[in-house]
C-alpha cells in the first residue's frame, strides 16, 4: 500500500523514482541514509507508521445475529441485522498536510431484548396461537410469578403457561422488535507531518433519530532514538444528546417514575413522550511504539475514559418482582405471588475506565508473513473488568493476494449493579392510608379533594365533616406506588453488562487489482457465552452469536501516479494530460458517457436525493383530505393516513472498464435509504375516519426509515459512432433485484402492520431491462446532447407479489464552458412511469394512498440545472465532479401522490 511511496528503506531511489542507485559500500549507504533523514519525504518511516497516502475507500458490510433462546417459544421477529455503508478518503493538501474525511451510515432492525424476567412468569414472551398452533410470541413485560418461600420461581411451561409445580430458576429475555432505523456519522480531520513528529485534529458528528453526538479529537506523535521509538498521545471529547422516543406500544407498561422530570411531550396529543438526557465522554491516551529488532516491534498504550451524564439505554427495562410483605410474613402462605413490573433501567451517572493495550508484531521471514498478537486489559468503577486476546497472521500469497486469518477471545466481569431481575418486598401499588389508619379516597372529578373512610361506608372530608352519599359516590381509592427508596440506586438487566466470554474468528482477504485498485473482503463469526467468562460463568439464557461480512474497494491515488502502472507517465504527473477530456453529460444522466481507450478504468460515486412533501396531488392538482379519504384507497377501505414527506437517498458506486475501444462494461452497486412520516387525514367535519378492526395505526413523531442494499445495475455500453464533435452510444443495461421488497414494519398497538409501503421497499424485486441511447456533441465552448431510455420489468411479479411500473425517459441538454474546467448546463426532461401492477400478496398496512398500487407513476416534466467540473492539473488532476438540481415543472400523477419537490444528483469520478 502506501509504504512503497513513503517507506521504501531497502532501495534508495533518485528523485523521479526511476532508477535504483547501486549500493557500493555500507559507509556510502549510511551517509546517504543519514542525509535522507533530514530530507522531506521521510525515507525512514516512523515506527508508528501513521502516514497513509492519498486514497479513497468504499465499504459495505452486513451484521446478522442469530436467534435468542426463548425456550421453545418461536419468535416471529427476525433477529437483529444491520447494513453498513462506509466511505472515506485522505488527500494531501501539501507534501506534509493531509485532509481526511469519513462517512458511515448504518441501518438496523430486528428483535431486541427489552427486559429479562423469570421464565416462570405468566407473561414474558406470550405465545400467539393460530388454530391451536403457536405461531409466535408477543412481549408481555408486566406479569405475575408464583414463588416459594425461598423466593424461587415455580415453573410454568413456556408455551402453555401451565404451572409445572417445580422450581424453575431460569431467566429469559423478553423480545421486542424495532422498525428499521438509520444512523449517519461524518468526520473530518487534518494532519501535519514533520520529520520526527506529527499532529492531527479531527471532529465530526453522529445523528440518529433519538441520539445525537458531536466529537473532537487532538493528537500527535514524536519520534526519537533514530526513529526506533515513537510516543503517541491524544485526547478527545464527545458530547451526546439523547431524545429517546418512548415507544407508544410499550409506554403504558413501562414504569418511568424515576425519569418523570426528564420526559417531555412532543407533537401534541398524537405525538410522543420523549425521554431527554445528555452525556459527556472524555478520552486520553498515551502510547509508545518501539522497534525491538529488525523483525519485531511492540506497541503499547494506556487510555483513560471518563463519562458522565445519562448512560442508560432508555429502551431497556429492569423487571422488579414486587412481593406484598403481608403475604411474605404470613408463614401460613405456601406460595407467594410476585407482581412483575418493568422499570426503566438506572445506571450510575459517572464512569471511569482505564485500558491497557499491548500489541506485539513479528515478521516471520520464512513465510514472508507477519504475526500480530494483542492483549488488552480494562478496569472500571462499574466493576466491568475485561480481558481481550487476539492474534492474526498476515500472509501474502503471491499474485497480489493477502490472506489474514484472525482469532479473538474476550471476557468481561459483571457490572456491580447488574442482575437478571430484582425482588422488592413491597407492593407495587397499594391503597393510601393516613396517619390514623383510615383509607384515603379522592374525588373523581377533582383530584385535589380527599376523603377519608375507616369502614368504606362513611366518608369524611379534610375538615373532619361527614360528607353526604351523593358526594361520596364520586370518591375513589387513592393508591401509592412503590417506595423507590427501597430499590437499589442503580440497576440494569442489559445483558451487555452481565459477565460473559466471547470467542470470534474470521479472515480478511485482499487482492490488488491493477493501477492502485484493491479489493478487500472480511468475514467474522462471533459467539457469546456466559460459560466462557474467565473465573466464573452464569446462566446461558443471554447467549447468542452473530456474523459479519463486508466488502470494500480501495483506491490508492498516489500509486496511480508514481508506480509502475502501464499508463503512468513518470515525468509528467499531470494526470489530466493523458486523457483527452471530452465533456460529460449533466450529473443526473446515467450511462451517458464512455471511456475512450482500451484498458481505461473508471471509478465513481453517485449520490441522488429525491424529495417529496407538501400537499397531496391528484392528477395535476392539489386535493383536500376528504377526497383522499373517499377515493385514495379502495372502495371498501377508506384512507386514514397520508404521507407528510418522503425522502429517498441513493448512493451508487460506478465501476467502469473498457475491454475494447468500442465496448465498456459497467457495474453499479447501489445503497438506498428512505424516510417518511404520515399524518391523520381529517374529514370535512374535523373528525378522523373510523379505524377498521385489526388495522395498523400510526402515531408519534418517529416516522419510518428503511435502508440497505438496493438493486445492482450491470451494463454494456457500445459505441455507435465517434467523429470529431459528435459521439453516440447505446447502453444495454440490466438491473438485478438485490434490493429487498419484503421489509415489514414493527408490531404496534398489538397489531402486526405487515409489509411497509411500496415506496419504502428498497428495490424493484424483478430483473429489469434498462436500455438507453445517448448522443453528445461539442464545439468550442458549447456542448449539447440527448438521451432516451427506459426500464422494462422482465418478470410478471416480484416475490412480494407486485411489479413496479415500466418507465420511459427522454431528455435533451445544452451546456457552455464558463472556464476551461467548468461547464454549466440546462436540461429538459420528460418522464412517463406506469402504475404498480398487481399488489402485495402478503398483509400490508393499507392505511393510506401510498399502500395502493394505482397511486404510483404518472407523467412528469422537469428542468435540470447542472455544473460539471474537471480538475485540470495539480494534485487533484483528473477528478471530476458534477452537480445537477432537477426542478419539477409540471406533474400529472396517477391517483393520489405527494407533491414532487425536486432531486439532486452529485457525482464524483476518477479515470485511471
Amino acid at each position, binding site marked *: 500500500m502506501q509504504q512503497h511511496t513513503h517507506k521504501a*528503506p531497502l532501495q534508495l531511489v533518485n528523485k523521479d523514482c526511476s532508477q535504483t542507485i547501486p549500493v557500493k559500500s555500507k559507509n556510502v549507504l549510511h551517509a546517504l541514509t543519514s542525509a535522507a533523514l533530514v530530507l522531506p519525504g521521510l525515507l525512514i518511516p516512523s515506527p508508528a507508521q501513521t502516514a497513509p497516502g492519498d486514497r479513497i475507500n468504499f465499504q459495505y458490510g452486513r451484521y446478522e445475529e442469530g436467534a435468542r433462546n426463548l425456550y421453545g417459544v418461536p419468535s416471529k421477529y427476525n433477529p437483529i441485522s444491520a447494513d453498513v455503508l462506509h466511505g472515506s478518503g485522505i488527500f494531501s493538501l501539501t507534501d506534509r498536510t493531509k485532509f481526511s474525511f469519513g462517512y458511515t451510515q448504518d441501518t438496523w432492525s430486528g428483535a431486541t431484548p427489552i427486559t429479562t424476567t423469570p421464565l416462570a412468569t405468566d407473561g414474558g414472551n406470550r405465545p400467539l396461537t393460530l388454530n391451536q398452533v403457536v405461531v409466535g410470541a408477543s412481549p408481555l413485560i408486566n406479569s405475575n410469578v408464583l414463588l416459594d418461600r425461598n423466593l424461587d420461581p415455580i415453573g410454568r411451561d413456556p408455551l402453555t403457561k401451565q404451572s409445572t409445580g417445580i422450581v424453575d430458576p431460569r431467566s429469559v429475555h423478553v423480545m421486542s422488535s424495532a422498525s428499521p432505523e438509520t444512523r449517519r456519522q461524518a468526520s473530518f480531520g487534518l494532519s501535519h507531518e514533520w520529520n520526527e513528529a506529527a499532529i492531527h485534529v479531527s471532529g465530526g458528528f453522529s445523528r440518529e433519530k433519538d441520539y445525537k453526538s458531536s466529537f473532537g479529537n487532538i493528537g500527535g506523535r514524536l519520534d526519537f532514538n533514530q526513529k526506533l521509538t515513537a510516543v503517541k498521545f491524544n485526547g478527545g471529547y464527545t458530547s451526546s444528546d439523547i431524545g429517546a422516543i418512548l415507544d407508544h406500544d410499550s409506554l403504558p407498561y413501562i414504569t418511568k417514575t424515576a425519569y418523570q422530570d426528564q420526559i417531555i411531550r412532543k407533537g401534541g396529543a398524537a405525538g410522543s413522550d420523549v425521554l431527554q438526557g445528555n452525556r459527556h465522554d472524555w478520552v486520553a*491516551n498515551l502510547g509508545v511504539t518501539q522497534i525491538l529488532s529488525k523483525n519485531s516491534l511492540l506497541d503499547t498504550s494506556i487510555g483513560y475514559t471518563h463519562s458522565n451524564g445519562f448512560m442508560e439505554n432508555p429502551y431497556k427495562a429492569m423487571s422488579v418482582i414486587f412481593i406484598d410483605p403481608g403475604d411474605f410474613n404470613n408463614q401460613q402462605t405456601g406460595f407467594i405471588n410476585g407482581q412483575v413490573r418493568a422499570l426503566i433501567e438506572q445506571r450510575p451517572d459517572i464512569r471511569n475506565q482505564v485500558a491497557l493495550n499491548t500489541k506485539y508484531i513479528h515478521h516471520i521471514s520464512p513465510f514472508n508473513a507477519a504475526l500480530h498478537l494483542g492483549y488488552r486489559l480494562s478496569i472500571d468503577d462499574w466493576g466491568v473488568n475485561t480481558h481481550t486476546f487476539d492474534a492474526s497472521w498476515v500472509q501474502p500469497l503471491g499474485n497480489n493476494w493477502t490472506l489474514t486469518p484472525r482469532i479473538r477471545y474476550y471476557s468481561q466481569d459483571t457490572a456491580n449493579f447488574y442482575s437478571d431481575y430484582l425482588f422488592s418486598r413491597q407492593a407495587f401499588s397499594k391503597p393510601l392510608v393516613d396517619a390514623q389508619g383510615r383509607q384515603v379516597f379522592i374525588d373523581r372529578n377533582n383530584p385535589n379533594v380527599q376523603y377519608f373512610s375507616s369502614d368504606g361506608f362513611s366518608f369524611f372530608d379534610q375538615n373532619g365533616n361527614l360528607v353526604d352519599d351523593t358526594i361520596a359516590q364520586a370518591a375513589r381509592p387513592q393508591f401509592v406506588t412503590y417506595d423507590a427508596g427501597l430499590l437499589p440506586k442503580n440497576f440494569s438487566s442489559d445483558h451487555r453488562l452481565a459477565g460473559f466470554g466471547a470467542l470470534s474468528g474470521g479472515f480478511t482477504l485482499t487482492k490488488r487489482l491493477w493501477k492502485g485498485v484493491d479489493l478487500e473482503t472480511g468475514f467474522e463469526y462471533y459467539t457469546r457465552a456466559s460459560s466462557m467468562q474467565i473465573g466464573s460463568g452464569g446462566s446461558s439464557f443471554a447467549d447468542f452469536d452473530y456474523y459479519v461480512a463486508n466488502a470494500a474497494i480501495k483506491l490508492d491515488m498516489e500509486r496511480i501516479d508514481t508506480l509502475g502502472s502501464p499508463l503512468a507517465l513518470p515525468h509528467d504527473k499531470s494526470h489530466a494530460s493523458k486523457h483527452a477530456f471530452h465533456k460529460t453529460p449533466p450529473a443526473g444522466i446515467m450511462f451517458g458517457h464512455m471511456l475512450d481507450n482500451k484498458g481505461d478504468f473508471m471509478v465513481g460515486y453517485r449520490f441522488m436525493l429525491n424529495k417529496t412533501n407538501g400537499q397531496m396531488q391528484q392528477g395535476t392538482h392539489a386535493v383536500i383530505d376528504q377526497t383522499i379519504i373517499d377515493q385514495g384507497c379502495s372502495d371498501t377501505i377508506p384512507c386514514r393516513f397520508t404521507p407528510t414527506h418522503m425522502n429517498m437517498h441513493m448512493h451508487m458506486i460506478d465501476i467502469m472498464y473498457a475491454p475494447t475501444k468500442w465496448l465498456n462494461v459497467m457495474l453499479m452497486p447501489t445503497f438506498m435509504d428512505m424516510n417518511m412520516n404520515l399524518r391523520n387525514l381529517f374529514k370535512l367535519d374535523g373528525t378522523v375516519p373510523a379505524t377498521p378492526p385489526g388495522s395498523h395505526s400510526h402515531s408519534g413523531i418517529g416516522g419510518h426509515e428503511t435502508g440497505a442494499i438496493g438493486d445492482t445495475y450491470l451494463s454494456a455500453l457500445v459505441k455507435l459512432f465517434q467523429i470529431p464533435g459528435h459521439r453516440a452510444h447505446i447502453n444495454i443495461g440490466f438491473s438485478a433485484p438485490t434490493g429487498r421488497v419484503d421489509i415489514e414494519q414493527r408490531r404496534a398497538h398489538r397489531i402486526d402492520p405487515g409489509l411497509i409501503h411500496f415506496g419504502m421497499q428498497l428495490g424493484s424485486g424483478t430483473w429489469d431491462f434498462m436500455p438507453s441511447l445517448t448522443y453528445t456533441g461539442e464545439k468550442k465552448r458549447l456542448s449539447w446532447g440527448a438521451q432516451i431510455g427506459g426500464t422494462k420489468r422482465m418478470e410478471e411479479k416480484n416475490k412480494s407479489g407486485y411489479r413496479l411500473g415500466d418507465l420511459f425517459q427522454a431528455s435533451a441538454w445544452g451546456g457552455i464552458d464558463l472556464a476551461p474546467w467548468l461547464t454549466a448546463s440546462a436540461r429538459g426532461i420528460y418522464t412517463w412511469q406506469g402504475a404498480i401492477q398487481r399488489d402485495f400478496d402478503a398483509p400490508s398496512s393499507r392505511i393510506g394512498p401510498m399502500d395502493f398500487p394505482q397511486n404510483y407513476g404518472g407523467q412528469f416534466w422537469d428542468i435540470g440545472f447542472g455544473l460539471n467540473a474537471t480538475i485540470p492539473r495539480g494534485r487533484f488532476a483528473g477528478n471530476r465532479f458534477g452537480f445537477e438540481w432537477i426542478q419539477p415543472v409540471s406533474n400529472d400523477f396517477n391517483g393520489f401522490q405527494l407533491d414532487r419537490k425536486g432531486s439532486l444528483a452529485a457525482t464524483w469520478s476518477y479515470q485511471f
Partner: protein
Amino acid sequence: MKTYLLPKLLLIAVCIGLMGCVNVSPWERGNLAKPSMEIDPNPLQSEFQSHNYSSREAAPSHKSSSGGGGCGCY
C-alpha cells in the same frame, strides 16, 4: 485485580526500558516497512469489527481515539 495490575505495569516498564538498548539501522528495517507489519494492517476491517464489539460488549470503545458516537441501543 489491582494486585495483578501493578506487576503487569512494572513488567511493561522494564520491557520498554530494555528496548532502548536495541539498535536497528535504517537499512535493516525492510521487513518492518512491509504492509503486513503495520500496527493496523486492515483499518477498514478493524473499524468495522470494533463498532460491532462496542455495541455488544462493555469494554471502553476500542477506537476511542477516533471518537464517534451512536447509541448502539439495540
